[in-house]
C-alpha cells in the first residue's frame, strides 16, 4: 500500500515537476551564472518539490509553484554563501511606480539599434543585472510567466513586477549599447 503511494507520488512528480526541468535549468543558469551551480540548484529544487508535493493541490499551478521553490532555494543558498548577491535597495525597487514621462524619455533616449547584438552579449548583460531585475527578466523571458504569475512567485504587487521589468529592460538596453559602443559608457 505504502509502496503504491510512493509510486504514485513519483509518477506525479514526473508529470508535474520534472517536465519543467529544462526551464528550471535555464533559469538557474542565469541566476547562478555557472553550470555546476545551476545543476545543484535544480537538483535541490526538485528534491524539495518532491518532499512537499502534497502541497501542490492544483497541478496546473505546478510551474509557478516549482519556480517559487527554485527562488526560495536560491535565495537561501545565496544567503548562506559569504558573497551576497547584488541586491538593489528596497528604495530603488519600490519607489518604482512608473510615470508616463519616464517611459517616454526612456524610449527616446535609449532608442538605438541593437539588431547586431550577439546572443552571448545578451547572456552577459543578464548576468550583470542586480538580482531583483535579473529575476524579473528570467521569469518573463526564460520561463514565460505572466505578470500575475510573476507577482505570485516574487511576492510583490503587479505594479512592482511591471516596474522591475521595465527597468530591467532599460538596464539591458544600456548594457548592450555600451558593449557595442564602449565609447558611450558613462565615465
Amino acid at each position: 500500500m505504502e509502496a503504491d503511494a510512493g509510486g504514485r507520488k513519483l509518477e506525479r512528480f514526473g508529470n508535474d515537476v520534472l517536465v519543467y526541468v529544462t526551464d528550471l535549468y535555464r533559469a538557474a543558469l542565469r541566476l547562478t551564472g555557472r553550470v555546476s551551480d545551476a545543476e545543484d540548484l535544480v537538483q535541490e529544487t526538485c528534491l524539495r518539490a518532491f518532499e512537499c508535493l502534497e502541497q501542490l493541490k492544483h497541478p496546473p499551478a505546478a510551474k509557478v509553484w516549482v519556480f517559487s521553490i527554485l527562488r526560495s532555494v536560491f535565495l537561501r543558498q545565496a544567503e548562506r554563501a559569504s558573497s551576497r548577491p547584488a541586491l538593489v535597495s528596497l528604495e530603488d525597487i519600490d519607489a518604482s511606480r512608473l510615470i508616463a514621462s519616464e517611459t517616454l524619455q526612456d524610449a527616446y533616449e535609449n532608442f538605438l539599434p541593437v539588431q547586431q547584438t550577439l546572443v552571448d552579449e545578451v547572456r552577459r548583460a543578464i548576468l550583470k543585472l542586480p538580482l531583483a531585475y535579473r529575476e524579473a527578466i528570467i521569469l518573463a523571458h526564460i520561463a514565460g510567466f505572466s505578470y500575475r504569475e510573476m507577482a505570485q512567485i516574487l511576492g510583490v504587487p503587479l505594479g512592482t513586477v511591471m516596474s522591475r521589468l521595465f527597468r530591467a529592460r532599460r538596464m539591458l538596453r544600456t548594457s548592450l549599447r555600451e558593449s557595442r559602443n564602449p565609447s558611450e559608457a558613462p565615465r
Partner: protein
Amino acid sequence: MTCQQFLGALDPYLDDELPVTEVLDMHEHLAVCEACRRIIESEATVRSLLTADAVQDTPPDSLRARVLQRVGAAGLGPRDARPRAPWLGFLPVGLAGLGLMGLLVVVAVIAGGKGPEVPGPLAAELAAKHLLYSEGPRPALALTTADATQMTAWLEGRLGFSVRLPRLSRPDERLVGGRASTIADVPAGYLLYERHGRRVSLFVTQPLPSAKLGWTERVVDGVELYTAALGGLKLVWWEDEAEHRLYAAASTGGERELVELALLCVRSGQPSRLDRPALPSAMSNG
C-alpha cells in the same frame, strides 16, 4: 491615442498583457506613427534576443537521472526535517480582459462581417486571436523560428503537454514562429505559418466542452473535422483523441487549404514527447 499613452502601454502590449481593445488602439496608433513604429521594432528586437538566448541551453541528460536518483532515495524513507515551500494559489494563465463579448465585437469590427454565420464561442475566440497575433505591423510572436523541433520544445516547456506540428514539404510553406496563448482560459500553443503567401494560424490545446457549437461536421479521408466561417476567415478544428488534444486552424484562405493543413498535422506521426524519463523501476511500480 498619443505617443505618450502608446509608450506607457508598450511593455504590457509586447508582453501580451493588454486587453484586446487596447491592443487595437495600439495598432491604430502604429499605423499612423512612424516614430513609435521604430521604437516598437527596437523593443521587439531586444525581446527576440532574450528569447533566442533563452532557448540556447539544455540541461545535460545526466541531470534528470541525478534528480530522479535523489528523489528516489528521498522517497524510500522520510526525511527528518521537511523543508517548507510556499504554497501559492493558482490563477489561470490568460489574456487579461479578453472576454467573449469583447472578442465578438472585435471580430465583427475587424472582419467587417455581417455574414450569415452565427459563430460559436470557440470560432469567435480563434478568429480574434488569429487576427490579433498574425495581423498588424509584425506578428505578435514570442519565438520566431522556422525550426519545428525548436518550436515544439519551447512550446512544450510552456504548456506542459506534447504538441504535434505538421510536417511541411513544399517550398512555399514555412513555420514563422509561435507563442503561448489560451483558448477558453485553457493554456494553448499558437503557431503561425505562411502557406502559399498566406498567414495561417494553428492552435493546440486540450479538448473543450461545447466546442462543436456553431460548427459544421465533415469527414475527410477518415478524419473528423469541424469547419466554420466568420467574416472573411475560414476556421477548422479537429481532435487527436489518442493524445487528448484539440487542434484548430484559421486563415483568410480557402477551407480546402485549412483541411489540407489539418490532414498534414494528423498524418505527421507521433507527437514529440515531453522529457519524461523512465522512472526508477523500484519506485514506478511502488
